[in-house]
């Protein structure tokens, strides 16, 4: 273990060479395996999130998300309790629900769930009617200004299919986002889900989200009762 800054600097060349030679962080299985074998899920350890928005930025870079649009974001709240004031961070993204309300409303069948649980949009078929945007209880979808079609988090399906982690997971500074296969009994997400009391957002909607939260404060589980957001990106079509 590197215990001091000097030791760290001494070890830096070795670390960088090692990083260059070592394979990229990868999930246990790669593409080419039988579809339906996996059920991808994410665990968000809220207490480890530092609100740095590295996930937000890496998602934008990885998925070419247009300006003022977000597939994921860390909602940040100031919480006053008596004399104490604290900050609460809540990473939000598509929940890749087992019962996704966005799918049945789609009038052209453009949005669908892969056998591994990932909910995606077929951009060729999507008509941009935004019905799915309305149906999502998590405000996780939006109309992409550049394509005029529905857009959302895909769990970085293109990366996952190549055996890589989603960009947000790979860049998470605090290790708050843990991604893996729920069907794999040895996966970290499986262990975390089995061994902890997990919460999901808006459980009363019956959507069965597959983004699980560890240490989620109940006040943030549904619509947050508080003062409105201070930051507003420019309007539609900007």
């Amino acid at each position, binding site marked *: 273990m590197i215990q001091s800054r000097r030791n760290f600097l001494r070890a830096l060349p070795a670390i960088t060479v090692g990083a260059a030679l070592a394979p990229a962080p990868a999930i246990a299985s790669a593409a080419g395996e039988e579809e339906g074998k996996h059920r991808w899920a994410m665990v968000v350890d809220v207490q480890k999130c530092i609100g740095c928005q590295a996930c937000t930025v890496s998602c934008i870079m990885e998925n070419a998300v247009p300006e003022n649009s977000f597939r994921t974001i860390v909602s940040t709240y*100031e919480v006053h309790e008596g004399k104490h004031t604290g900050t609460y961070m809540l990473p939000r993204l598509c929940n890749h629900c087992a019962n996704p309300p966005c799918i049945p409303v789609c*009038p*052209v069948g453009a949005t669908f769930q892969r056998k591994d649980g990932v909910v995606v949009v077929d951009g060729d078929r999507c008509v941009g009617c935004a019905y799915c945007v*309305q*149906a999502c*209880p998590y*405000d996780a979808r939006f109309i992409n200004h550049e394509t005029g079609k529905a857009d959302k988090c895909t769990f970085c399906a293109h990366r996952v299919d190549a055996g890589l982690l989603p960009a947000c997971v790979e860049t998470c500074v605090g290790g708050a986002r843990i991604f893996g296969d729920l069907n794999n009994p040895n996966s970290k997400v499986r262990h975390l889900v089995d061994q902890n009391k997990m919460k999901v957002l808006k459980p009363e909607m019956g959507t069965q989200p597959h983004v699980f939260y560890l240490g989620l404060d109940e006040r943030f589980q549904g619509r947050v009762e508080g003062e409105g957001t201070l930051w507003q990106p420019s309007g539609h079509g900007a």
Partner: protein
Amino acid sequence: MDSQIIEVLNVTRETAWLPWAVQYFFLIGLSYGSFMLTLPYFVFGRAQYEKLGRLALLGALACGLTAPVALLADLHGPGRFLNFYLHFQPQSWMSWGSFFIPVYLVGLLLYAWLALRGDFAVQGQGGDSLLTRLYRLAGRGGVAPRMAISAAALLTLVGAVLVALYTGMEVMVVHARPLWNTAFLPLQFAATAFAGAIGLALLFNRFVGDHDTQLEIGLNRLLVLALAVVLTLGGGWLFVSLSGVSPSHSAAFSQVAGMPQWQLTAVWAVLATILPMALAIWRPASSGLITGLIAVHSAWMMRWTIFIGGQSIPKTGAGLYDYHLPLGGDGLLGIVGTLGLWIALLVLMVDYLPWAGQAFASRNKKETNALATSAIAQH
């Protein structure tokens, strides 16, 4: 312990159903409402409703033909509508809607043609201009048999009911928005559509027809009934929300009840219902312009509040999303453009469709006088 939460950072999800959607729901509602007003004369042959039938037919056509244009514009790419027909999804109300709209519109055009066929034939008498020949072609066969008109009306009626059903259900099934997720909504859409259509007929009676006082009185009476239904439905929603019978309704109410802008909207909506009711009862013979305008306004405002207001309520975040009407195609220009198309279609139909028949004596007289004056001037 008391706690206060301030949202410091979150994303504002922009309005995804744009003012185009408001225009579509408004216009298609006015169209099917107006169509219903044509039935007493054209289908049931009640001569006293001839003026109403003819004016309402104009309204049904102008609104019905403009509405789908607004809907296509909301797709961010009009050609995409083809996918609706290539990939039918029986579980989606919107998918069904893409089939119901043509049923209604084809029915309406067929019905209008059959209803006016005798008038086309009259218009085609004498002269050999291209227009006269077209009138003769459209009027071939003369007055259409009542059975044919009734059959077309039945097809249109089925289309109208299906359109009213799908437009309501499409919004109602969105569980994610408690304000929309209410069984009252389809009924409220239909009731306000009828009130709006009556309002439109009152305006047409003033500006397109010959300002028939008896018609104004009759329409004002009908408007009172329609607005009473609107008020009852609104009261029913409020009762269910406050009584706690339905958690979804209570959630919708609690989302908006404390917001000053929503309180203002509620007061406005109630006033825009009660005021025309009072006026229509108090001065049924002379208040048509005001009651008509307010009724049309209410129908539009109800949809604006539901769609634009509804989308300003965050599903997860705190407070409200700000909505500023853009000036371009996604906002004001879209609304003005739809209105422009509607006016253009109306002017074309008023000028070229034999919509008036022989019902509007004073109007016909005015036109004859105008023709005579221009003929004298030419000499």
